[in-house]
Structures are given as C-alpha cells and as structure tokens.
C-alpha cells in the first residue's frame, strides 16, 4: 500500500515537471500541426490507395505525428505494468498496425472531401484544435484534435470524430479483445494483428 502511494507520488511529481507550461507549443503551432496532418491524410486518401498500401501510409502518418506507444499503453490500461518487456513491444507493434488499418479505412470515407481547420482552444494538457470536414456528399463532419507537447515536440494525441474519441473507443475495443484473450496480453497480440 505504501509502495503504491510512493509510486503515485513519484508519477505525479514527474507529471508536474513534464506538464509545466511549455514555450514551444502555442495556439498557432498546434493549429499548424493539424493543418499539416490533415493535408497529409487527404493527400494519402486522394491517391485512391486501398488495402495494405493505404495502411502503410497511415502507419507512417501515425508514427510521424503521434506518440503511438503512449497511446497504445493508454488503451491497454494498467495491465501494461505486469506485461513482459517483449510482450509490451509486440503489443505496441500490433496496436500500431491495428489503428493504421482501422483509421485508414475510416478516413478513406473522406475521399474527395476538404478539411477546414477552424480554431484552437487552450486546454489543460495543450490545445484542442477544431476542424470541419466537408464530405464529398456535402455533409459536414466535426473532427477535433487534441494536441500536446512531448519532449519539446508538438504531437497529436487524440482524435474526436463527431465527439467520439479514438482513445476512448479503442480502450473499449482493446478491453473486449483482452477479455476474449482471458486477460493475457500475449494472447491479445495475435487477435489485434487480425483486427482493424
């Protein structure tokens, strides 16, 4: 019990230092990141690529803009701490492939649309950048991007499609797969490789 208190305290202390006000992340830089990210996404989907070649491009985009292993860890939950180093590594790799496939497929629905980055708002952890996707069919679609600074680098963290969070949805999805794997990360990995 005491050990846990100590660990929580240590984490909080680390968070205090790393979460301090940053100089590099500004409203403009957050907005610029999402401008660039949405341009990258649109240019990939507008190549008309599908299947594996498309997912490979999304894998690159995730790697470039987002802290994939931190997101993977967040979606898995505290069981991460009792997972072996090699399984952690394999899980992160499988997770990365999974979200690239899943969100590659999802964003392909935006083929021929325009993404308008509208505004950015300061939030506790960084910025929330609002954008509006105008689908080829004419219907607008709200996409919000959570942006923060990590080790001096501006990164994208979570994605909200009409208010539905990628991390929240994936935490549920991974939780279900973990249940089906009898709570074993080693058995979750092959499931994850097939999903998405």
């Amino acid at each position, binding site marked *: 019990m005491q050990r846990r208190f100590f660990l929580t305290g240590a984490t909080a202390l680390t968070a205090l230092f790393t979460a301090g006000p940053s100089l590099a992340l500004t409203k403009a830089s957050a907005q610029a990141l999402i401008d660039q990210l949405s341009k990258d996404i649109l240019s990939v989907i507008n190549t008309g690529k599908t299947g594996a070649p498309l997912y490979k491009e999304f894998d690159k985009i995730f790697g470039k803009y987002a802290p994939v292993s931190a997101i993977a860890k967040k979606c898995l939950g505290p069981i991460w701490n009792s997972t072996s180093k090699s399984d952690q590594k394999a899980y992160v790799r499988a997770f990365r492939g999974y979200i690239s496939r899943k969100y590659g497929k999802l964003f392909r629905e935006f083929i021929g649309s325009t993404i308008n980055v509208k505004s950015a708002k300061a939030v506790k952890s960084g910025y929330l950048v609002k954008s509006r996707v105008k689908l080829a069919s004419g219907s607008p679609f709200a996409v919000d991007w959570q942006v923060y600074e990590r080790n001096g680098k501006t990164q994208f963290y979570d994605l909200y499609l009409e208010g539905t969070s990628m991390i929240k949805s994936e935490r*549920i999805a991974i939780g*279900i797969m973990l249940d089906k794997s009898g709570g074993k990360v080693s058995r979750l990995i092959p499931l994850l490789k097939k999903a998405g």
Partner: protein
Amino acid sequence: MFSNLITYGLQKSAFTAILGACLLVSACTVPPAQHTGVYDPYEASNRQMHAFNKKLDTKLVGPTAKGYGAIIPPFVDRRISNFASFMGLPRQAVNNLLQGDIPGLSETVLRFATNGITLGLFDPATDFGIPDNDADFGQTLAYHGFPQGFYHEWPLLGPSTERDTAGFIIDTVLDPVNFILPSSTTGMGTTFSILDRLGDRNDFSDIIEQTLYNSEDSYLTARSLYLQNRAFKLNKGVNEDTLEDPFSDF
C-alpha cells in the same frame, strides 16, 4: 388560422403521446454513482435487441439502403437529405428557444431563410458558414435538468436513453411542421427523414458496417459511440473535462 387544419385525431394522438412522454421523463431513472458513467441496467435485454437490429440491418436495412443507393442517384439523394433537414428546422428553432440559445436560434432562422430560397432542396447555408446545430428535445430536457436515465436500444431506431426517447416522441408529435402543413401531408417530414436515413446508411455504409460487424463487441461499441456523440452535441463541442490526459500512463 391553422387550427382548423389540425384534426381531432391528431390532437388526440398527440395528447396521448405527450402524456406518455411526460410520464417517461418524470420517471427518468437517476443512476447510482458509477465509475464508467454508463447506466445500462437492462444490458441483457438491450443486447437481445441489438442482435435483432443487427440481423435486421444485415437482412433488410443494409440491402435496402444499398438498393436505394443504387437506384437513387447521389444528386437526388442529396436533395432528399437537404429537404429532410430543412423540414426539421422549425422544430429545431423551437428547441433553440426552449434552450435559451439565441445564437443557435438565429443560426436556425438564417438557415431556414437561406435554404428556403431553394425550397430546402439545396444547402447554400452550409457554404455560407451557417452551421446546422441539430437542437432537439432530448437536449432541451437535459438543459432543464432532466437526468439522462438508462441507456436502451430500440428496434430499428437503435441506441437511445430514457431522456432522448422522451425527446424524440415530443419532437415527432409536436413537430410544428405537422401543424402548419395541411393534414393530408402530415408525415411528409417523417417520410423524408426515413429516406434520408436510408441515404445516410448508404453513404456511411463502410463506417457503420465496420462498427457493426468488424468490432469485437458491437453492442458496447455502438453504446459508447452513441453516448459520446450525444454528450458532444449537448456540450456543443468536445467536453474539455473528459479529454484524455497525455501526461498520465493510463
């Protein structure tokens, strides 16, 4: 002026439905404190309904929507979709007003005036940057402090909550359009919104199919997506307090 257009039957059925909705609202269950924020005491029967809806979607709605998508050209589909949302604007305006949302009300009125020029068939308002705020009576109830109640899944209509169901009934029955148009056209708005839904089902078929068939537990997925989306609409944007913390591990 319009009162002579309202038939006794409509009045009577409207009254019964409103009474029902009021009872439903007043009975909205207040959940015990929960960590997940999801109050789903009827999960077992909801799951049965979900399985039924899924089957219905595979066998009927999906193919119908695909057929609809194949028959109705995108141009016509968009006109139907625009018209359906145009017909919903008077109802939306009433809800803006009931929510004390004056900027929202002016958006709705402006949309009505702008798109009205095209008889609601086109949507120049969106191009002019006048957004659709989607106000409904479920939100109005929330604004006035009615609790969300439990989550449930309806046949065909899918996910809802006690509060949203009551809101849906009131919106449908008290739709101002029903009272303005001659009684012979009552239900026109509903017909168009059904056609619109079929169109949506076709447009976003991949996204929906992915949600329904490609996810490990489509019930939980659908529930989470619905509740998150409703919270987003209620808050008129992403609720900052619910953002994930990138500085903590889990």
